[in-house]
């Protein structure tokens, strides 16, 4: 019932936004899964949208719909944007994938860009960030900073993006301390500050002393700060919530991509494709390294430079899976993109069972 009304509200918003814009400007739409005030995933997309308006505001109008539920609701919201004359629409969550594919088929003249998905079409491009590169660095730092040798990981859903993040963290941590352990708690939500905080508390209570999260609010950082433990920010710099706790944060930087794609659309040369940028393209950036000794900081900076330069790959072969089998090496000396994008196994050293396996 509530979802229905939210969708209706979103639809009204979309229609209301339509007639206000000028005739000749390109209309660009954005769909966010969370509120722009989540200070995490959706917030970073909103930051990029504002930069886009700053850069090209005289030639485009932008509309965004926030708090759109994944699933059928999102299909209605995306279709509303398309009907309202938006020619380029960014759908910014994995769960919008099938809805975006459907609407893209219905509106062949409209161009769509879907974040973190893998289904493409001639008018549907995908883009994402190599967040696992940042997680590898975080794993190294965590292993250096942990006294108990147990890391705590607050996960959202066991989808490949999150799983590859856990694996990259562990590979990074194992490069420092081969005996490092990780405890994983799935909260089955991208955004529920209370639940994220409860999960963080549970992890600390069970002996983890460095927290990482793959959920969208700063709750875990806040808990770490209250308990005097270390944590990593997620999606955006969360230093405000843990001045003495944040070691670093993976900061998503979508602005360059949005500006580039909108320019192509304006020039009439937009083409479908797949962008997967990492530290090298600055799609993924690291917040300042704080609350750690200089040698750890130096190690982190060296690793960051090596990954950005392509000298170090977090998934360099051999990668050994949880069951002890070596994973087939399809990318030469590292796993190829397809293997990382579809990752559905834990690496050796993760004790948790892969959900659903």
């Amino acid at each position, binding site marked *: 019932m509530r979802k229905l009304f939210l969708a209706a509200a979103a639809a009204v918003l979309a229609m209301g936004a339509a007639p206000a814009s000028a005739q000749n400007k390109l209309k660009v739409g954005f769909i966010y899964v969370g509120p722009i005030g989540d200070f995490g995933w959706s917030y970073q997309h909103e930051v990029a949208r504002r930069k886009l308006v700053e850069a090209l505001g005289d030639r485009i109008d932008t509309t965004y719909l926030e708090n759109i539920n994944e699933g059928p609701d999102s299909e209605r919201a995306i279709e509303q944007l398309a009907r309202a004359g938006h020619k380029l629409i960014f759908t910014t969550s994995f769960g919008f994938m099938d809805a975006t594919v459907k609407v893209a088929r219905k509106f062949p003249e409209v161009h769509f860009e879907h974040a973190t998905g893998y289904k493409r079409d001639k008018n549907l491009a995908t883009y994402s960030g190599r967040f696992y590169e940042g997680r590898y660095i975080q794993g190294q730092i965590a292993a250096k900073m942990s006294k108990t040798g147990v890391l705590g990981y607050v996960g959202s859903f066991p989808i490949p993006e999150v799983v590859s993040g856990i694996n990259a963290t562990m590979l990074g941590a194992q490069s420092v301390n081969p005996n490092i352990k990780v405890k994983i708690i*799935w909260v089955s939500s991208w955004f529920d500050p*209370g639940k994220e905080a*409860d999960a963080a508390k549970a992890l600390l*209570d069970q002996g983890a002393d460095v927290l990482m999260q793959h959920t969208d609010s700063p709750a875990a950082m*806040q808990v770490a700060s209250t308990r005097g433990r270390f944590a990593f920010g997620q999606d955006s710099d969360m230093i405000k919530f843990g001045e003495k706790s944040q070691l670093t944060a993976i900061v998503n930087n979508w602005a360059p991509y949005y500006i580039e794609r909108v320019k192509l659309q304006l020039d009439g040369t937009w083409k479908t494709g797949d962008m997967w940028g990492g530290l090298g393209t600055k799609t993924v950036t690291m917040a300042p390294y704080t609350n750690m000794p200089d040698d750890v900081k130096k190690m982190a900076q060296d690793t960051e430079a090596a990954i950005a330069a392509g000298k170090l790959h977090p998934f360099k072969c051999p990668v050994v899976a949880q069951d002890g089998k070596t994973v087939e090496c399809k990318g030469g000396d590292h796993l190829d993109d397809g293997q990382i994008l579809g990752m559905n196994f834990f690496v050796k050293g993760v004790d948790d069972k892969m959900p659903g396996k």
Partner: protein
Amino acid sequence: MGLVEAILLSVLAASTPLLLAASGELVAERAGVLNLGVEGMMIVGAACGFAGAYFTGSTLFGALCGVMAGTALAALFAALTLGLAVNQVATGLALTIFGIGLSGLIGAGFVGQRIVPAPHLFVPYLTDLAFVGRIVFGQDAFVYGSLVLVLAVRWFLYSTRPGLVLRAVGDSHASAHALGYPVLRIRCLAVLFGGACAGLAGAYLSLAYTPFFIAGMTAGRGWIALALVVFASWRPLRLIAGAYLFGAVSILQLHAQGAGLGVPPQLMAALPYLATVLVLILISRVRRSEGTAAPAALGIPFVPDR
């Protein structure tokens, strides 16, 4: 601190907002008004509570702001459903959507700001007692307040004359009206009380539970509070059992995951709801002969004869 103690502390914290909001809604429903706007009143309470505490540095003032914000939204609901006899279900849903939007607007400037978390009680010696110390003597005021609130609601409903009148209004507004009781005024007060409690529950989230404000931070807790009222079959003391059962299952499933029991997390996440449904079925089987426990006039608008 032992693991069991840590778990109990987390359970208390997780159950408190549900208990606060559900107590208020229970009183409103016993008076015959179904207010589905709990989630909306809660989130506005969270935003205003945080704002109040941010400017004054006082948790108490913040909580007061939360209470007032919840009451203000409830007043809007009362004006529409009692004054104009608008459909309660539709108005309640609209109130939730309105509240979520309004809280985002109020709270926009406070996202990323910090406040001092609500202080916890500290009694020398007692709080340091092994195991029970921090659970019994080391909570924040909200936790104690929520329990006092439920007991007070129970005392009011079952041991006072105004409580009896309120229940009469909820069961048969026509009879109460015929006896000369001011049905609409009583319902209005009950709705305002419900709003105050929901606002307080929201303030608890942004002042004590996770001391920051973020849009949408109630994440459906208002709806769970609504369900708890049904779960408790409109009896205050059963609210305590319901809220703590729900809180306990929510926290335990997280710990079970951390301990690596290997149960699928999707099933774990559904456990609190599954447990609630199971208990509901059991209760309904036991009390089938007694008929429905809901106030007879719940959700029915009352328009006095002119």
